[in-house]
């Protein structure tokens, strides 16, 4: 960041070229998002033109074949399941990273890290498949129907945990050694060092990891579709089945035509809007962090 000011000590042609190249790449990346949003708008136009916007929130239920387009219960389900999963995966993920850095013997920590990296690559389909054949029956025998908000949260937690754990681990690894030695020299206990020095120093990276995980949780499709029951309703308890916005798209897109199809793209648009909101909140938060 020293070089972010104009007064660079060694300006060179290669640097200017590199900066240009990088800007072009970044521009392309930003353009992808724009393209996606334009695409969503274009595809959802048929229904946006005919149906009043507010009806997507106020309609009593989702029966597009019968002209009802209520998305509110699914929006709520998406939010609740993601929040639940973030809470669980955030706690467990950070704890796992701490385990790797501060508690585990070196060999154990290497194996643990490998295990977690492996899990990052297990297809959501496999999580869903496993959830459907193992987790759902267990919960069904306790509180039917089994496929519920709770199973959705649990499976999502498993899916995003590796993201949180790996990024938190990288962030903790980046804490300068000297901080930790300083803490040791002050005679701080291990928990004191972690809570007082390591975690605050790695806060930025950990939050970035949790945000990435939040995006993944909001956007996850196949696994949630398989385990959460997919009934469009406001959940009254953890054991009620719910349908998320993504599951809604995946379940019906292949079979939808005309206005129904366009309404599904509105689901996509709402979801993207939600993520933009989240990202802006995060950016604001990041700014505060930079100043503070």
């Amino acid at each position: 960041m020293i070089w972010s000011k104009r007064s660079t000590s060694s300006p060179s042609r290669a640097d200017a070229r590199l900066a240009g190249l990088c800007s072009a790449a970044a521009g392309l990346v930003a353009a992808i998002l724009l393209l996606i949003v334009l695409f969503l708008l274009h595809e959802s136009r048929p229904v946006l033109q005919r149906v009043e916007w507010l009806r997507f929130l106020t309609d009593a239920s989702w029966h597009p074949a019968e002209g009802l387009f209520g998305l509110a219960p699914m929006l709520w389900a998406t939010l609740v399941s993601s929040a639940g999963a973030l809470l669980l995966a955030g706690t467990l993920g950070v704890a796992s990273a701490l385990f790797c850095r501060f508690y585990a013997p070196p060999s154990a920590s290497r194996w643990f890290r490998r295990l977690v990296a492996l899990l990052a690559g297990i297809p959501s389909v496999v999580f869903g498949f496993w959830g459907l054949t193992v987790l759902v029956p267990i919960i069904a025998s306790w509180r039917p129907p089994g496929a519920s908000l709770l199973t959705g949260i649990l499976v999502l937690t498993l899916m995003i945990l590796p993201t949180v754990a790996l990024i938190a681990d990288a962030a903790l690894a980046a804490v300068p050694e000297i901080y930790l030695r300083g803490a040791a020299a002050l005679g701080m206990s291990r928990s004191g060092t972690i809570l007082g020095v390591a975690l605050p120093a790695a806060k930025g990276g950990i939050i970035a990891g949790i945000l990435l995980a939040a995006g993944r949780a909001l956007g996850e499709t196949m696994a949630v579709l398989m385990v959460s029951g997919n009934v469009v309703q406001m959940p009254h308890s953890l054991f009620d089945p719910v349908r998320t916005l993504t599951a809604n798209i995946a379940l019906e897109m292949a079979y939808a035509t005309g206005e129904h199809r366009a309404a599904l793209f509105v689901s996509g648009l709402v979801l993207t809007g939600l993520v933009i909101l989240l990202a802006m909140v995060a950016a604001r938060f990041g700014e505060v962090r930079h100043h503070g």
Partner: protein
Amino acid sequence: MAEAESLAVTRRWLPEALMTLAVWGSALLVAGIFLWLLGDLLWRGAGHLSWSFLFSSPLNAGRAGGIAPILVSTLLILGVAVAAAVPLGLATAVLLAEFLSSHSRFGRLVGLSLDVLAGVPSIVFGLFGNAFFSIFLGLGFSILSGGLTLACMVLPILVRTAEAALRAVPDDWRLAGAALGLSRTAALRHILLPAASSGLVAGLLLGVGRAMAETAALIFTSGYVDRMPSSLFDSGRALSVHIYDLSMNVAGGDGNAYASALVLIGLLILINGTSLWLAEHWLNRRILTP
């Protein structure tokens, strides 16, 4: 006196023990659940695994035969995705971390769009990829469309992790580089990127993992054809799509679905191992022997 001392010891000792307990507990829980999952996959899938499973074509909708063409398609899709996303992602990360200040409007715009991209559901990527790469650019159902769609999808992960890794390199190193008269490009190549290598690799692993695990985006772009691909313009079924089809759409496909999942995990271990090795041996040597 002795009592007060022991109280003080307890006061120090208790939170320490609680913390240790919590961390070990969480780690064991995480490892336990994942070993349960892996064990389950092994138990149900290992019986179907054999060399011929890896080297033959699927028969009878995948219930019999192997997954050779699917494996090849998966690797090609992954190759296209990595080839497209890594240079783009690395360049963007370098721009964000090294060239722009955190107040730059352009930087914030790019960052925002990345965070949004990270949360766009994979199925939306699939539909977008279908409309843009397959139809608009005329690539059809092909490994190329699938790979490029995945590239868009993993970009946020690559950029954000690479950016974080670069930012984590202490500023002293940049100053030292500048003092030695290194250009930024040279400093990046010889100091910053190698120093950030472990973070870069972690990001790459996450990205590759995410790409390998993707189903929804690929059904609409790289397609369903389970023939051995003869070019990047051929449609090719990815492993995860195969797993989904076998488990959800083909009666009697569960055994091979589990076996395919095991192969996918094996592939992942291979890729993880290779990239970790690369990071240690190649990037680290560069930093030590300039």
